[in-house]
């Protein structure tokens, strides 16, 4: 049996002051359901990270089923930090593959902008093990990637300028994406001179705080987009336990499993959305997914290979850095962009219509990684 994507929906990412978490979810779901040719939904999976702690709202699945009049069908919320959306998507796929459901609605959503940066930073830190000497040392989530970046610079010829090239590429892509959070042009100089968040990462190296939602309808009934592989892996929950700091092993493992299931290799992928929660994360992910050799991602960046219509276009949506990162929605927003790329109507549409697309969604500092490969059929 195979699982197919029938339709997608997504809100504008950014500041949705007048919309609740529920409003955002329902808007994205309506857009997806309106294009699903009347498929009757059998189950709902929601990807969400901080609905309870920041928006004081749980029972998201049941709310979706009720307010959309889907009937009293089974629903659940999945939490896997920033990979919540990808994990919810995967549970939808598995629910269909098990034979239990025919049609599943998956929605990812987050409401964050109403809270202060300090409050959000505190809640995001819950994606690290809170009972360890690392937490007590004051290591933050961005701090992990700062430590990684300094070691990467030490072992390669890369510098802060290479991270800035990633941030600039993703901003330039977002300029053409009407749903992206950041639509203001920038320059390498502005990125390099921005205030430091955690050395060597500056403001433009870090994904923003965002409101938004994205949804997708999956089915066992054939459509033009088939899910060729779904894979997930866990990784170390602490920096000091990584046997190789410059390897996010969950990305590597989930990628390898996805390629094996799909019967293809990284060279076959035409377009990619990866989890650039920080510019440094994109650098590691393009290596771990096998697109470029280990410790050589910075050379590919320098040569423009990950730009739109480059050898391996990465984050044509603008990525987390510039599309925005409403945490639970991100994994589904990646799918949203790839579906449009495969259908030929995406922002930054590739000149040659892609056939194979890969989405990689990360949670924690490498604690979770989910990879999906989509095929235009």
């Amino acid at each position, binding site marked *: 049996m195979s699982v197919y994507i029938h339709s997608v929906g997504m809100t504008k990412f950014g500041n949705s002051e007048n919309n609740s978490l529920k409003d955002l979810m329902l808007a994205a779901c309506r857009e997806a359901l309106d294009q699903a040719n009347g498929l009757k939904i059998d189950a709902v999976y929601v990807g969400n990270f901080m609905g309870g702690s920041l928006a004081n709202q749980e029972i998201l699945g049941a709310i979706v089923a009720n307010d959309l009049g889907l009937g009293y069908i089974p629903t659940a919320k999945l939490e896997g930090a920033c990979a919540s959306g990808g994990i919810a998507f995967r549970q939808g796929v598995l629910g269909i593959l098990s034979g239990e459901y025919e049609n599943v609605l998956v929605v990812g959503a987050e409401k964050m902008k109403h809270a202060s*940066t*300090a*409050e959000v*930073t*505190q809640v995001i*830190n819950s994606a690290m093990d809170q009972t*360890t*000497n*690392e937490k*007590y*040392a*004051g*290591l*933050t989530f*961005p*701090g992990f990637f*700062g*430590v*990684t*970046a*300094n*070691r990467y610079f*030490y072992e390669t010829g890369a510098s802060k300028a290479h991270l800035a090239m990633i941030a600039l590429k993703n901003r330039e892509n977002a300029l053409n994406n009407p749903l992206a959070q950041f639509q203001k042009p920038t320059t390498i100089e502005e990125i390099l001179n921005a*205030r*430091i*968040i*955690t*050395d*060597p*990462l500056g403001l433009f190296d870090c994904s923003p705080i965002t409101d938004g939602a994205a949804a997708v309808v999956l089915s066992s009934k054939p459509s033009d987009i088939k899910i060729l592989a779904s894979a997930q892996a866990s990784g170390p929950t*602490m*920096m*000091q*336990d*990584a*046997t190789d*700091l410059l390897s996010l092993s969950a990305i590597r493992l989930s990628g390898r499993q996805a390629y094996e299931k799909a019967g293809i290799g990284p060279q076959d992928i035409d377009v990619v959305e990866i989890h650039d929660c920080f510019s440094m994360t994109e650098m590691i992910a393009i290596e771990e997914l096998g697109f470029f050799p280990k410790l050589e991602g910075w050379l590919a960046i320098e040569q423009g290979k990950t730009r739109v219509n480059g050898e391996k276009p990465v984050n044509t949506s603008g990525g987390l850095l510039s599309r925005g990162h409403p945490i639970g929605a991100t994994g589904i927003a990646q799918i949203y962009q790839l579906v449009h790329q495969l259908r030929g109507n995406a922002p930054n549409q590739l000149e040659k219509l892609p056939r194979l697309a890969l989405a990689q969604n990360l949670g924690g500092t490498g604690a979770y990684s989910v990879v999906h490969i989509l095929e235009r059929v």
Partner: protein
Amino acid sequence: MKVYECCGVESVTKKVYCSNCSKEITNEREVPDEGTVYSFTVIHIAPPEYAHLAPYTVALVQLNNSSAKLTVRMDEAVQIGDAVKLDEIVDGTYIYKKVS
């Protein structure tokens, strides 16, 4: 400093079972508190409980005579490769300083 070992992997974290052989991890040994800075960051934006310390340096220390690493807070600026040693442990935080 105590490190825990099984199947050749050493960690300062005491885990229950070995991810390689699935047996309970029982080997432990003392290693020196000294090491070298493997990498570091200077944190400028901190959560509320650490805001009064910012900017502060967090380093990943490769412990001497062990494959284990340890995340510490430094009380001074460091570079990769600097020799460092334990200064004190405060509320579960390993505070390190450079070996002068």
